């Protein structure tokens, strides 16, 4: 027995090595998803009566659900391309031939390493009505006479949250794209130069196509995380004013944790799950088509 442990067969060893990972995945991903669907379908009300699909009907008719879905999709549609553009710009700047690479590299790593919730708190302070640096700069430049209550007005609060998310996520995009930029062979640019292509043409005809694989990877992961947006609106506005900046993740958290309505929270989570699957499927299908 002991010798078997010391020198196990290939198969035994594989099972031994893989089982901790799969046990955890089963306990923390697979089982919860099954439980989630069960909760949403077999809801029981306080008197023990079977509710059936009532939760789905309730969610469908809940204006808060549609509001949160709209906010979540809007945040995704704004911040994913936003982070891509800012990230690409940062990557192009960071790719210049600097003598010392570390200041630029550290500048891209710091926002990545910062917790999302801290980014939310810091930017909430930037947008503070009385003592925020944003109002200070705008007033010094003479662009406004009175301070604006950015986080108390629905549209401005939404915009401030999108800006914060773009700042926080663009650096990670830049790191991924920078790695992609550094893999483009220099000879391609030299050949284009000989052919008389200007910088603009080189950018669109060499840089962007060669960077496409990195862009797609970065976009997929950014989209998945954008759909789960929670930390930044929670720390900046708590979803307010009213429900103007409430996301689906915040609504799920509110029903499950604050209201202890497990059935309704689970049904919302199933909707969210479906939306994520659709988006992921869309991307994967797109990649498949491009690869073929």
């Amino acid at each position, binding site marked *: 027995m002991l010798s078997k442990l010391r020198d196990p067969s290939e198969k035994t060893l594989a099972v031994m090595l893989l089982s901790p990972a799969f046990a955890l995945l089963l306990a923390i991903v697979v089982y919860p998803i099954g439980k989630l669907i069960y909760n949403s379908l077999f809801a029981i009300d306080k008197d023990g009566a079977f509710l059936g699909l009532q939760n789905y009907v309730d969610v469908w008719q809940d204006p808060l659900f549609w509001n949160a879905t709209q906010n979540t999709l809007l945040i995704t549609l704004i911040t994913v391309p936003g982070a891509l553009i800012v990230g690409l710009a940062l990557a192009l700047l960071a790719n*210049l031939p600097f003598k010392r690479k570390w200041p630029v590299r550290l500048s891209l790593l710091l926002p990545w390493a910062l917790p999302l919730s801290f980014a939310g708190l810091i930017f909430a302070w930037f947008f503070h009505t009385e003592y925020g640096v944003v109002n200070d700069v705008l007033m010094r430049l003479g662009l406004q006479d009175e301070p604006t209550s950015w986080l108390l007005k629905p549209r401005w609060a939404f915009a401030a949250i999108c800006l914060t998310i773009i700042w926080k996520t663009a650096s990670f995009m830049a790191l991924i794209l920078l790695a992609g930029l550094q893999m483009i062979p220099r000879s391609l640019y030299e050949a284009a130069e000989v052919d008389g292509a200007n910088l603009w043409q080189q950018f669109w005809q060499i840089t962007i196509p060669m960077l496409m694989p990195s862009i797609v990877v970065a976009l997929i992961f950014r989209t998945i995380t954008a759909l789960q947006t929670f930390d930044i609106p929670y720390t900046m506005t708590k979803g307010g004013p009213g429900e103007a900046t409430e996301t689906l993740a915040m609504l799920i958290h509110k029903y499950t944790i604050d209201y202890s309505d497990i059935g309704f929270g689970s049904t919302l989570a199933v909707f969210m799950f479906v939306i994520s699957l659709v988006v992921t499927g869309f991307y994967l299908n797109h990649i498949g088509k491009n690869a073929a």
Partner: protein
Amino acid sequence: MSMAQQHGLWSSPMLRWIAAGIVVINGFFPAVWILFTSLKPESELVQKPITWWPHGPTLENYVRAFTDQPLLTYLKNSVLVASGATLLSLVVSAFAAYAIARLNLKYRQLILTCIVASSMFPLVTLLVPIFETMRALGWLNSYAALIFPYVVLNLPVCTLVLVSFFQSIPKDLENAAMIDGCTRMGALVRVVVPLAAPGVFTAGILAFVNSWDEFLLALSLNSSPAVRTLPVGIALYQGEFTFPWPIISAALIVSIVPIALLIAAFQERVVGGLTQGGLKG
């Protein structure tokens, strides 16, 4: 790079300074602004128009951050949770990665895909059942409630980084050790583990940062102040009537510095690991 080298305009040192300036200001301004805020006495903070550079720098906000609020407890909780999650993530993912990279597995690609695909599931959808399970186990308000989910959170990145490291170690080295009389486990411990140390270290930093930063589960599963981690503890700081910005700024600096030093010291590894298995937004 080449674009820049071929054109006089693009390679001018002036332009490089401007480019570096933009990137550095973008990355550092928020943290630096919070540092300035944390050093201003309360009287200076409520002054209008606001000051930029702190005129009368003081450490009083730092003292208050530790005395008015249980910042030290939050710090301890964050260190314990993140370290525990990191160690466990490394053990679990190193086992899995070794099997995937080295053993003769029939479904190698499928196994790796399963592990990586787990990161595609939105964490918030798993929140409800995880919350219920932890409540049933009586684990709410404990370190374990966070450590186990964090291991799963770290599993895809750590496994990807470690698989590519194990693959880069020549198999002959291991075979040679086995021919010299080492058992398979002996070869693993004496040859593979030491050679994989840099990869394990990289995966460890990524796992630590991920665990240190997590907010949703920490907020939902550990509501008691005694087990709050830094991100949750600081976000829930509440003044009597107003949000206590000076103390928050000091607390933020206290929590940012350890992570900033860690990534500053191991920048190249972190970037390498991120681009190999980067899955975090």
